[in-house]
C-alpha cells in the first residue's frame, strides 16, 4: 500500500490486489522519522484511476460489442503485471486519530511522509487496546471481521443518550435486548417501553427454560397486571396524563385540580367518586363535558382501578430492580394509541418522581419506536432535563426520521444497522459523533445482524461487529399468513 493523497481528513491510499482491504478496516500509516502514526479507517474502496484503462477495455470490445477472440503470445508474462496495475484500488480513508508514544489524539494536522511511510492493517484487538476500549463492566457486543470480540464498557452507556437504528429485520431489537440483559447483569435498573411485546420472554431461554434473568424481568401489561388506583397517583402525574395524553384544555385542567383537591380532602380518590364529582360539580357545561370525556377515556383504558389490591405499584418493581438489577418491561402491545400515551405519561412521570426523590439512582430507558407514544415536548425533556434526573435513554427505531435532529446531535452512541435508503442515511449522518461519509458508505453495505458502533462506546472509532446471539426466547415475530 502506498500513500497517495490527503485532503482534509481524508487520506487516499493506493492498494494492490494482493492486499485485501475492505470497508471498515483500520490502517496504521506509520512515519518512522516523525515517530508518529495516523490511524485511518477505510470508508470506501474504489478503482484507482490508472491511465489507459479505458483504452484497454475499449479495445477488447470492438467487434460489435462482442469480445474479439484471439491469442496472446506473451513470453515475458507481462499480462499479470497489467492485471496487477489495472486492479489497483484506491482506498478512501478517514483519519481517526494520531498515535504517538502509544497515546492517541484526534489530531490530523500533520502529514506523514508519502515515500517513507509504511502502511499496514491495524487489527481490531490492537485498535481497541490503543483506544482503551475496555473497562470493568464488559459487554461483548459481538464478533468483528478478524474474529476478535468487540467488547464495550457498560459505563460508556451510563449517563448517555443512545440510538439503535436500521431498517427492518436487521437486528435492532436483538442488540437492544443484548444491551439490556447485560445492564441488568450489572445490577442496573432498566425500563423498556415494549411496543410489540418483544421483551416479554427475556427471562426464558430459546427452549423455554428459565434463564439467569428470569427473576429480574418484570413484565407489566396495562389493564392486566398493571393497574393504578387514583389514590396512588400524584396530582401532577394525572394532570400530565390529562393535558399531554388526553389534551385537556387549561381551563378544564384548573377545574380538575379543584375537583381533585376536594376528593383528596374527603379521602375519596376513587374512579367512581371522581365521576360523580364531575357530574355534580358546579362549573361551565363545556368544562364539565371536557372533563367527562377525559374521565371516560381513563375508565375505558382499563388502566385505572378502584381495587387497591389489584393495583400494581410500578414503584415496587423499580425498587426490586434497584436492589439486584432488573428490567421493568412495560408491554404496550395491543394497547391503543391513547392508552399507550396514558401509560407512558404515567411511567415517565413516576420515574421522574422516584429519581427526584432519590428513591432510584438512575434508570436505563429503552424506547422502541418512541414517536408512537412520546409527546412532542418529551423529546427535549428526555435528552436534556431527564438526563439530569438519571434517565438514560436508548431509542430504537427503523424510521430514523421520526427521531428529531437535535436528538441525533446529542446522541452519545449510535448503533447503526443496514440502511439503503439515502434519506434515512442522511438523517442518521446528522449525528454529531460521526461523519456523514462514514455513515453513508459503511452502513449501506452492512449485512443483516452487523452493526456499526459509533460514539463513546468505541471511543469514536467506528467499528463494525456482528451482534452476538442471545439465548433468550424471541418474541415479536411478524405474524405471517403463508405459514403453517
Amino acid at each position: 500500500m502506498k500513500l497517495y493523497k490527503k485532503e482534509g481528513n481524508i487520506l487516499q491510499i493506493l492498494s494492490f490486489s494482493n492486499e485485501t482491504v475492505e470497508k471498515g478496516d483500520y490502517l496504521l500509516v506509520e512515519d518512522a522519522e516523525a515517530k508518529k502514526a495516523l490511524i485511518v479507517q477505510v470508508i470506501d474502496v474504489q478503482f484507482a484511476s490508472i491511465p489507459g484503462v479505458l483504452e484497454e477495455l475499449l479495445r477488447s470490445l470492438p467487434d460489435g460489442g462482442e469480445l474479439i477472440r484471439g491469442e496472446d503470445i506473451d513470453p515475458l508474462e507481462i499480462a499479470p503485471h497489467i492485471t496487477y496495475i489495472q486492479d489497483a484500488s484506491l482506498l478512501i480513508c478517514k483519519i481517526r486519530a494520531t498515535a504517538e508514544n502509544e497515546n492517541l489524539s484526534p489530531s490530523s494536522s500533520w502529514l506523514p511522509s508519502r515515500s517513507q511511510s509504511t502502511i499496514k492493517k491495524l487489527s481490531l484487538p490492537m485498535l481497541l487496546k490503543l483506544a482503551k476500549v475496555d473497562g470493568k463492566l464488559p459487554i461483548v457486543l459481538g464478533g468483528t471481521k478478524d474474529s476478535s470480540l468487540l467488547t464495550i464498557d457498560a459505563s460508556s452507556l451510563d449517563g448517555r443518550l443512545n440510538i439503535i437504528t436500521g431498517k427492518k429485520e436487521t437486528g435492532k431489537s436483538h442488540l437492544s435486548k443484548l444491551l439490556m440483559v447485560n445492564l441488568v447483569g450489572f445490577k442496573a435498573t432498566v425500563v423498556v417501553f415494549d411496543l410489540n411485546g418483544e421483551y416479554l420472554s427475556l427471562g426464558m431461554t430459546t427452549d423455554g427454560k428459565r434463564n439467569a434473568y428470569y427473576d429480574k424481568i418484570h413484565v407489566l401489561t396495562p389493564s392486566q397486571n398493571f393497574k393504578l388506583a387514583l389514590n396512588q397517583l400524584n396530582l401532577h402525574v394525572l394532570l400530565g396524563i390529562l393535558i399531554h395524553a388526553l389534551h385537556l384544555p387549561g381551563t378544564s385542567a384548573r377545574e380538575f385540580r379543584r375537583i381533585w383537591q376536594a376528593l383528596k380532602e374527603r379521602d375519596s380518590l376513587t374512579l367512581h367518586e371522581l365521576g360523580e364529582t364531575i357530574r355534580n360539580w358546579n362549573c361551565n357545561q363545556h368544562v364539565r363535558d371536557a372533563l367527562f370525556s377525559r374521565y371516560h377515556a381513563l375508565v375505558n383504558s382499563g388502566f385505572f382501578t378502584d381495587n387497591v389490591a389489584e393495583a400494581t405499584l410500578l414503584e415496587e418493581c423499580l425498587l426490586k430492580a434497584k436492589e439486584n438489577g432488573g428490567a421493568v418491561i412495560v408491554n404496550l402491545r395491543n394497547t391503543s394509541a391513547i392508552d399507550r400515551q396514558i401509560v407512558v405519561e404515567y411511567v415517565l412521570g413516576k420515574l421522574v418522581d422516584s429519581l427526584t426523590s432519590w428513591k432510584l439512582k438512575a434508570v436505563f430507558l429503552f424506547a422502541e419506536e418512541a414517536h408512537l407514544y412520546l409527546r412532542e415536548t418529551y423529546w427535549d425533556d428526555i435528552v436534556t432535563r431527564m438526563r439530569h434526573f438519571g434517565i438514560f435513554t436508548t431509542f430504537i427505531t427503523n424510521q430514523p426520521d421520526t427521531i428529531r435532529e437535535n436528538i441525533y446531535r446529542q446522541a452519545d452512541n449510535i448503533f447503526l444497522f443496514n440502511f439503503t435508503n439515502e434519506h434515512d442515511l442522511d438523517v442518521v449522518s446528522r449525528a454529531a459523533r460521526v461523519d456523514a461519509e462514514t455513515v453513508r458508505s459503511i452502513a449501506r453495505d452492512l449485512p443483516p445482524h452487523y452493526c456499526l458502533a459509533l460514539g463513546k462506546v468505541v471511543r469514536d472509532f467506528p467499528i463494525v461487529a456482528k451482534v452476538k446471539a442471545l439465548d433468550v426466547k424471541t418474541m415479536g415475530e411478524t405474524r405471517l399468513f403463508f405459514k403453517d
Partner: protein
Amino acid sequence: MVIEQYPITTTPKYNFPHQSMDVTLPQQFIELSLHSLQSVHGQSFQLNQQPIQQINNRGEHPQTLTLRHDPILLEPTHQESIVAAVDTSTIKIAETTAGIVIAVRGANVWKQNKTYRYTRLGPFIFHVTEENKREVYNTLERAYFGYPYEHNHQGTPNLMQMPTRIASLLERWLQTMLSKTLDNALILFDGSLTSGTADTPTQRMKEILGAARKRGNIVLAFSKVTTLRVNGHLITDLLPEHKPPYLLEAAGLTLKPPMVLLGDVYVAKLTKGNLAFRLDIDREIPFEPRIEAVRRLLGNDLFTESYPETLRLAHILCTFTANEVLAMRHFVTRRYGLQIINRPDMHRLLFGPFGKGESYS
C-alpha cells in the same frame, strides 16, 4: 558472442488459418529480450513517456506525380475472402544510464466467416545500449535473413532508431508469416510499398510480396498519412465529386535510389466521409485482379472513414496503452531490480512553463 540459451520455447500452436510456421524469429525475440534485460540488473532508470514517432522521410519525388481525374468506380464483391492485416508498435519505456528500455509488440488480425480473430505477439522488452545494439540487431537479422545487418549495410543503426528498427523487423516477419500461410486472401499492410530504406530492404519486401502472390494472396498497403502532393495539394485531398467507393490512380511517382516502389499508388475513397487514403497495390498484380481485390475487400470487411476494420483492429491491438507501459515498468522493476529515478527535465528547469519539450510524470 554466443547468446546464453534460456529454457524458453515459443508457443507450439499458432492459430493462423494455415499450420506451417517459422518460429525462429519470436524465439530469438524472447531470448534477446531476456538477455538484454539481464544487463540492466540493479541499474537506475528514468521514466520517459515520449512515444517514438516513425519518421516518414521516404525521399519520394512527387514533381512528376499526376493523379488521374477519372475515378475507378467500385462495386463490392461478396465472394468470401479472408482479410488479414499486420501492424506493430514500439515504445520507449525508460532510459537507463547505459541506454534505453523499449517494448515491441505486433498483431495479426484476420476476418474469416464474418468473425475477427487475432494473434498478438509480445510485448518483447529490450534493453538496448551502445554496447549491445549491434548484437541485438544482428541476432534478429540473422534469425530472419540468415545474415547479419552489416552484411548489406554500413555501420550499425543509431541507438534512437533501434525501437523502430526492431519493430519493423517484427512487422516484416509477421507479414511474411501471413504471406506464407494464407491462400487467396487479402493482406493489408500498414504504410506504403516503398522499399529500399533501412527498415524495409527491397529484397525482403520483394520476398514478402512474392510469397504472397505465390499463394494467390494480394497485398494492399494503406498509408494513414501521405506526403505525396500534386500541384501542392495532398493527393488525398484532391477528390472528385463522385459517390464512393472509388479509386484514383496516381502515376509518375519516381523514387531516389536505392528506394524502389513495389506497388502502384492509388487514392482510395471507399466510404462516405471526409477521409481518403493512399493505397499501394503490388504492381506485379495485373490491373483487373487488383481492382477485384479492392472490390473483395469492400465486400468482406467493415470500413470506418474508408479505412478497413481489420487494419484498424491490428493497430488498436498492438498499440501500447499507458496502463501497459506502467505494467512493463513494474515488470522490469520487479524482475530486474531497476530503480526509477527522476532526472530533472532540462526544458522545464531552464524555461519553466515555456519548456515544453521533454517531460516526465
